[in-house]
């Protein structure tokens, strides 16, 4: 995957070229104006620097035609920019009729994605290349914002309301998804990946089931879930304190809860903490973890438990 130009990320959607064209039009226009101002200023500073015995030459204190000129020309130029930007915006606002629809739910601090077949994933969104994709957004708690720089799209996800955006990816590859609206401690960890798949890879993806493949051990599957279900955003494996307690060596140990009682971290506690996370919060941490009820199967939870046991 290339890294784009000096100022812009890679262009991976049909809209990227159009947005960048306007960006660079403004950039060069502004550069010209800026150089004009700075050039004139420097010229005046040198030419008219204060000298002894200098005679001030007469000069008008205003010149209406000149001032009207430098009022009207910038006005015309910014109107060009307005119309150009508005046209691009209208294209971004109206999704083509043949779009594939994805439902995306944002919550602290993950993206829950439901593809057109109803398959749910977290933070990972697989889409076919050369196909308009419509994302129907909502939020379960705060305002978040769905932002994919390579596609030049961004839209806030607002509680109690649907918002939409669309894009058509042009190049297969993996692209970063960011949350662009500040949402608290895990904001900068609320990241995802958009996988743009070739037509063949898209067919394979549609056939694949979401559950644990036979050949993967529960512990390895748990490790994959740890990453793919965004546990990694808040729980470290090396003992460092993030938004939630580290998993390092936590299994089998007694921890103190927020209400002062203590509890041993066993299979039941882990299951309880995944399904109803705010019920038994470890002391020193905020009750901010979302529930994963309905998002993880019993098999998945078994695998996560096996994985947490293995982190020593």
């Amino acid at each position, binding site marked *: 995957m290339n890294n784009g130009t000096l100022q812009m990320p890679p262009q991976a959607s049909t809209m990227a070229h159009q947005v960048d064209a306007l960006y660079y039009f403004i950039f060069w226009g502004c550069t010209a*104006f800026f150089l004009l101002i700075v050039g004139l200023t420097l010229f005046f500073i040198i030419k008219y620097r204060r000298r002894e015995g200098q005679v001030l030459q007469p000069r008008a204190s205003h010149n209406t035609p000149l001032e009207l000129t430098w009022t009207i020309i910038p006005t015309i130029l910014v109107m060009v920019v307005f119309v150009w930007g508005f046209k691009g915006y209208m294209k971004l606002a109206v999704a083509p009729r043949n779009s594939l629809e994805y439902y995306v739910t944002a919550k602290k601090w993950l993206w829950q994605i439901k593809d057109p077949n109803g398959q749910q994933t977290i933070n990972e969104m697989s889409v076919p290349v050369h196909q308009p994709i419509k994302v129907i957004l909502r939020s379960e708690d705060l305002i978040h914002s769905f932002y994919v720089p390579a596609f030049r799209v961004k839209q806030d996800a607002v509680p109690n309301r649907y918002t939409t955006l669309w894009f058509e990816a042009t190049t297969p590859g993996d692209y970063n998804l960011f949350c662009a609206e500040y949402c608290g401690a895990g904001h900068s960890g609320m990241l995802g990946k958009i996988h743009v798949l070739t037509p063949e890879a898209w067919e394979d993806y549609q056939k694949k089931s979401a559950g644990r493949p036979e050949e993967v051990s529960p512990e390895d599957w748990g490790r994959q879930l740890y990453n793919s279900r965004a546990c990694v955003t808040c729980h470290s494996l090396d003992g460092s304190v993030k*938004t939630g307690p580290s998993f390092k060596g936590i299994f089998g140990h007694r921890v103190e809860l927020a209400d002062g009682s203590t509890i041993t971290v066993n299979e039941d506690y882990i299951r309880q903490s995944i399904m109803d996370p705010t019920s038994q919060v470890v002391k020193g941490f905020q009750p901010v973890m979302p529930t994963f009820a309905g998002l993880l199967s019993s098999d998945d939870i078994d695998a996560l438990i096996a994985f947490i046991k293995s982190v020593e």
Partner: protein
Amino acid sequence: MATRTLDAHGSPGGLNYLNVTRGFKSWATTLDHKRIGIMYLMAVSLALLTGGVFAMLIRTELFLPGRTIMSAETYNEVFTLHGVIMVFLFIIPSIPAALGNFFLPIMIGAKDVAFPRLNLASFYLWVTGAVFTVTAILVKGVDTGWTFYTPYSVQSQTSVIWMGLGVFILGFSSIFTGLNFLVTLHKLRMPGMGWFDMPLFLWSIYGTALIQVLATPVIGITMLLLVAERVLHVGIFDPALGGDPVLFQHFFWFYSHPAVYIMILPGMGIISDVITTFSRRHIFGYRFIAFSSIAIAVLGFLVWGHHMFVSGQSEMATMIFSFLTFFVAIPSAIKIFNWTATMYKGSIALDTPMLYALAFIFLFSIGGLTGIFLGALSVDIHLHDTYFVVAHFHYVMMGGTVMAFLAGLHYWWPKMTGRMYPETLARITAGIIFVGFNVTFLTQFVLGSKGMPRRYYDYLEQFQPLHQMSSFGAWILGSGFLIMVLYFLRSLRTGAPAPANPWGSLGMEWRTPSPPPLENFEETPTLTYGLYDYGKVYPREAS
């Protein structure tokens, strides 16, 4: 340094506003606009330094991805406090309440503002607001960002109530100052001074005061609603209670966009007066500049929705706000052209205030021009809520307002304190600050256009080189400010006594001794020659 005195009657050793009475109580209960201005100046400078320390903490944390010196929760509080302190405690009152208070009455030949008691009350309201803010920091901190977006600010466990009340009280301080200035400008101009004889600094203060009086009540009400929602659980903004979070954004920006012009307009006024003084030239296009200040004040009320292009507001609203946004760019462009033209055929001296004025033109041009990117709808979708916006905002607010504040501070320092600052050291420091500023924020434009979202504690590895460069710049910038604080403090004791008119300016404030007497002028002033009539007063340079 070109030191020159137009008026002979600089009276060192005589009585002035600083030594006419002494003691803490004489300051705490003073009704003298100059002393209130000085107290404001000390207060906002303290706020600037505090906000600056938070800025240094932010850039140090971002030097490396992941945890560098603080946790994510602490980081969120630090950037919130940086924003709140800089916006509400420093930049809004900085130029109008500190420098404006000191110079507005002098510039119109008056003895004081129209309502001296209200003026003192406004200062104590500021102090009260600041106490609430500090309390919020000490109790639990605040982590909502300076924008207090709902529903985050309704649900946050931090001291949002204290902070909201603090902002509410600071708002009244701002309203009182604005009201006072409006009445003073209407009623107390000296005989013979018409509206178009006023210095342009006062036109900009007039535009600012209009916005302060008309827009600030909205933020006050919004903050009260937010507090009511948190305390009484009335559903206004929080969707969990049946409220609408986007409504908050409308209310907030209905104030906070005009407030951006509260912040920048007074700075533009200072630049007009500094450039004419150091170019020895009549301002070019007085009326265009004066009316552009009023145009900015009016248009500033009609563009708040450009902060919300991706919030889910209607496409129609978005289109209208984008259209109007481009018109607000024009008056600023006019000012830049007129300032440049003012230097034409001038006699230009590069003393420190002029260096900061030139830095202003350079940096504010970048700040203004990058606003065009953000006004263009399709481009804004990509740039919204990225570091591009952070850089744009800082180029306007710091490259603009703070540079103008520093220009004004150096320009008027001799008048306010009766002491000169060390000129050579000050010029070098201006250079350090200019370089540090550009290294810090030019990099952030690129970070943003490459897709780095703002308010991120952690970042992807690809962004590291630019983040590190920005942090280096911030440290340079911080050192510059440190040097400035030291030389200003030192000049109070050891600076050379200032003559009445060290710059050879024609402004009214330079026609009275430094520091001015309690009544501002020793005799009732009259306008014998215009404030910008350099062509008549200086037919010839002779030093």
